[in-house]
């Protein structure tokens, strides 16, 4: 059995109560949601928080709804609910693409979107998904709420804009017409972290790509937002050649490290291939031409 070090534990009954606990307990306190990243780290004693504030009772943070031209997702929404949501699949099918290949059903039953984003593991899928979908997140502290775009959310490896006594409470996805999206991942085995993954979204306008979002997982210290390729696509008619060019940019602009999943050259190659595939599928979906 892997045994974590000793810690104190409390269960929050409200978001404000959880924030108050975090303020009171200081920097050695951690929020626990699904626990599928934090608990393994604690059992391996890679993380040794002194206090855990459990927010699993905050069911008011579990929802997927359409409101004010946005899809809004509560931070405590579990992976399994993201996977099953037809509303989400209708507007942002890349979520379902990603959720079918995130970990396994046991993890998906417990893990949450808020936990995934706040863990900010560069190999994690949902950060790329949200970046490509041009999402923003709502962060609440004792001083109130602020809305942060995904560009400003990832501060560094395993580090986000969420402060020590703050909680991410909602993800917002603006709904725009004629959009399509897709997520492509290569893993060594079902349930493994990605060797590389690419998320892409396009919004069509008069036969050309009006706007695009592209982000990569597992090929850098943080989620890689491939803005140079997004710029390339804007205003151009979709084609395999264009997507190949975008893929080449993704290969160049990522910064993978060599590890047990593969060497740098292979990961760069994958970043390109998967970017192309994601763009091709996202566009086909936007044009209702998916095979």
């Amino acid at each position: 059995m892997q045994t974590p070090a000793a810690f104190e534990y409390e269960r929050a009954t409200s978001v404000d109560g959880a924030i108050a606990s975090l303020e009171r307990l200081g920097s050695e306190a951690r929020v626990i949601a699904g626990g599928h990243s934090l608990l393994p780290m604690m059992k391996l004693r890679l993380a040794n928080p002194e206090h855990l504030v459990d927010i699993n009772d905050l069911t008011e943070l579990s929802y997927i709804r359409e409101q004010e031209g946005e899809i809004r997702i509560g931070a405590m929404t579990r992976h399994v609910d993201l996977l099953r949501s037809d509303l989400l699949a209708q507007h942002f099918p890349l979520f379902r693409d990603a959720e079918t290949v995130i970990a396994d059903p046991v993890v998906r039953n417990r893990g949450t979107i808020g936990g995934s984003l706040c863990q900010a593991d560069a190999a994690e899928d949902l950060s790329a998904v949200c970046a490509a979908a041009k999402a923003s997140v709502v962060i609440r502290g004792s001083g109130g709420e602020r809305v942060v775009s995904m560009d400003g959310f990832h501060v560094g490896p395993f580090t986000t804009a969420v402060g020590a006594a703050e909680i991410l409470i909602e993800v917002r996805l603006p709904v725009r017409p004629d959009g399509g999206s897709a997520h492509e991942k290569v893993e060594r085995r079902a349930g493994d972290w990605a060797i590389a993954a690419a998320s892409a979204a396009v919004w069509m306008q008069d036969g050309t790509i009006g706007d695009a979002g592209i982000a990569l997982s597992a090929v850098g210290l943080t989620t890689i937002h491939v803005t140079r390729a997004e710029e390339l696509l804007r205003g151009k008619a979709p084609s395999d050649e264009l997507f190949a060019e975008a893929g080449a940019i993704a290969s160049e602009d990522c910064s993978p490290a060599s590890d047990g999943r593969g060497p740098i050259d292979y990961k760069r190659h994958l970043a390109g291939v998967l970017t192309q595939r994601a763009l091709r599928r996202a566009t086909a979906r936007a044009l209702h031409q998916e095979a």
Partner: protein
Amino acid sequence: MATIENLPSPSAERPIGFGRLKRKEDARFIRGQGTYLDDIRLPGMVHGAILRSPYAHARVVSIDTSRALAHPNVAAVVTAKDLETLGLAWMPTISYDTQAVLAGDKVRFQGQEVAFVIATDEYSANDALQLIDVEYEPLPAIVNARKALDPDAPLIRDDKAGQHDNLASPTWEAGDEEATNRAFAEADTVVSRDIIYPRCHPAPLETCGIIADFNPQTGQLNIWNGNQAPHAHRTVYAHVAGLAEHMIRIRCSDIGGGFGNKVPVYPGYVCAIAGSIVAGVPVKWIENRTENLVSTGFARDYVMRAEMCSKDGKITGLRVDVIADHGAFDSTAQPTKFPAGFFHIVCGSYDLQASHVKVKAVYTNKAPGGVAYRCSFRITEAVYLVERMVDALALKMKADPIDLRMRSFIAPGQFPYETTTGWTYDSGNYAETMKVAMDIAGYDDLRREQREKRERGELMGIGVAFFTEGVGAGPRKHMDILGLAMNDGADLRVHPSGKAVVSISAQTQGQGHETTFAQIVAEELGIPPEDIEVRQGDTDKSPYGLGTYGSRSTPVSGAAVAVVSRKVRDKARLIAATMLETRPEDLAWEKGRWYVKGDPEKGAMIEDIAVRAYGGEPMPEGMEGGLDAQVIYDPPNLTYPYGAYIAVVDVDPDTAQVTVRRFIAVDDCGVRINPMIVDGQIHGGLAEGIGIALMELLSFDAEGNCLNSSFMDYLIPTALECPDFELGETVTPCPHHPLGAKGVGESPNVGSPPAIVNAVIDALYETHGVDHIDMPCTPARVWAAMQGRPEPPQ
């Protein structure tokens, strides 16, 4: 417990004897009611935890346990110094080497045992590990077997007198070198390959552990420990600890997988036993996942060079040179007279002119082991090598890999067949089995599909492997482990009610012994299987024998149960003759009943005979009462199951991901006792083979850090990587086994990796020129091969 009520099969479908029967033990397993080691809690029990070395090779300068001892819940901290006073600092391995129980002078692999903490609970024990201060002086590490014998390599085993290099065992040879040279000289085609069977791990889902409970008043040592050979362990403990063997009792309870990993005695066991003897209370120690992966018996790690030749379209010769990486201590599992196990079965299923095999072993700064992971002592490595070489030869000859095999097989008329390395194969009709596999696969259609796909730029491969295994070790004139004959016992007692208990020395780890062995008694005596209790895994309640590994349960223990059943049947015949007032020779047997040959209405059921055996009426002249018997079975030869496997893979041309789309497995394991259990064993082994071929690897960096210390990094396959397996069978009964059975548990693990790797190469050779790749075929490694720069696993 399984009862008649909760047995899943309706009674009309339940065979009394051989046949498809749902497993008796599953009634408790599928309800979560099994009893595994960690479910057992004894009064007053304390918990152990092991401090392990962070270095692969370092001198131990000092160990300060004072801070750990100050922990309020810690009872003791044991180091090598303490064990030295008990004479337990070193223990013998299964291969006549010695292994440090706790490191005193040096640590020799990352994860080696350094100190043992005993505390009131496992949390405190693990907390205290962080309070032990060890000062190390790091030394250069050797992790590459090919470099272990370099003149400047650091000496790993400086504890051994006279050891001046890292050679773990001198070169061992089989076959005829001169005749092999002649075969190569006369050949028209020769191929050579460097082939690595990389280090992998059996990774049973239940890790290893023990509860040791020494009673200072009685001198009795009770042990609960999931292990595959409880009787042999007891003998080893008696020798190592100087305890009386009859005062040691080992109980196994349910075991969550073994696969060879639970054959050896591990340092944690010795520490827990020593701890209980000193403390006088039960000590439980259960390793965590990381400990299991980094310190307990690994498998394979064979670095091989081979040459194969052919003449006139038929394979004629094989030359093999192997470096075996044993890690820091030689605890490889094999019978005494076979330092390379049964690797010299590498001549495979082919009628060769000659072959020659050389194996030498080296020490490296890696965990010890070399256990037979679901295989009979290195047969997996042998089958992988020969089946890869046959494909390499077929490539060079531009021959179809099945045609080449068909031309080179040992013919049915040649059995019993003496191989060029000295094995006597018992029986077989290889071409017939190969044809069944081709029919199921639709081989010609697959080749057509492959050509069409290639034109569209799609990569599809068809891979073949044909294996012959030698299992069921073994005849006592040839085989022993630590001087113990590889025989197994069976005790059978039929009770007055006509129900029976059969005790066996084998020990299930999930293979279904409770069902299979009951079916053997049922077949022989006609007692329904649900009325037969199979006892195992308790050294006080079962006969002596060497246990379950090497696919030996059915070949050895199964034979013992058949023979003991027949002894009981013979005794029943004499009693029946008295009951029926006739002569024994006038009686005939039908399942469950002796009857008078000329008057079939007149007979005695086995349960009536049992009543008589225990009743007040007279027994036959000179016969003791009761209806029971016991045997120790000494197999006259190994059994030789074989099979034809065909894998169909798709390789993504851009991402290099390999998908096993189809897998056809046709096994000939002789007579099948429970075909459903046989199918289940094959499914499990094929899944493992897919894992080994595509993802499993224990790798090390240059400093000797193990890079695969959890299931995040040591990948085992899931159902999603496994196709819907297509199974077939041929039945060639073993001529010397009382039931004609041959054993099957390991065949699928042995036969599937070469089929899959051959398929990957078949997919890539024409378009990308890939003529070799080492396992595991991960996307990154396949991609590198497609770029023309394959890399050996490290």
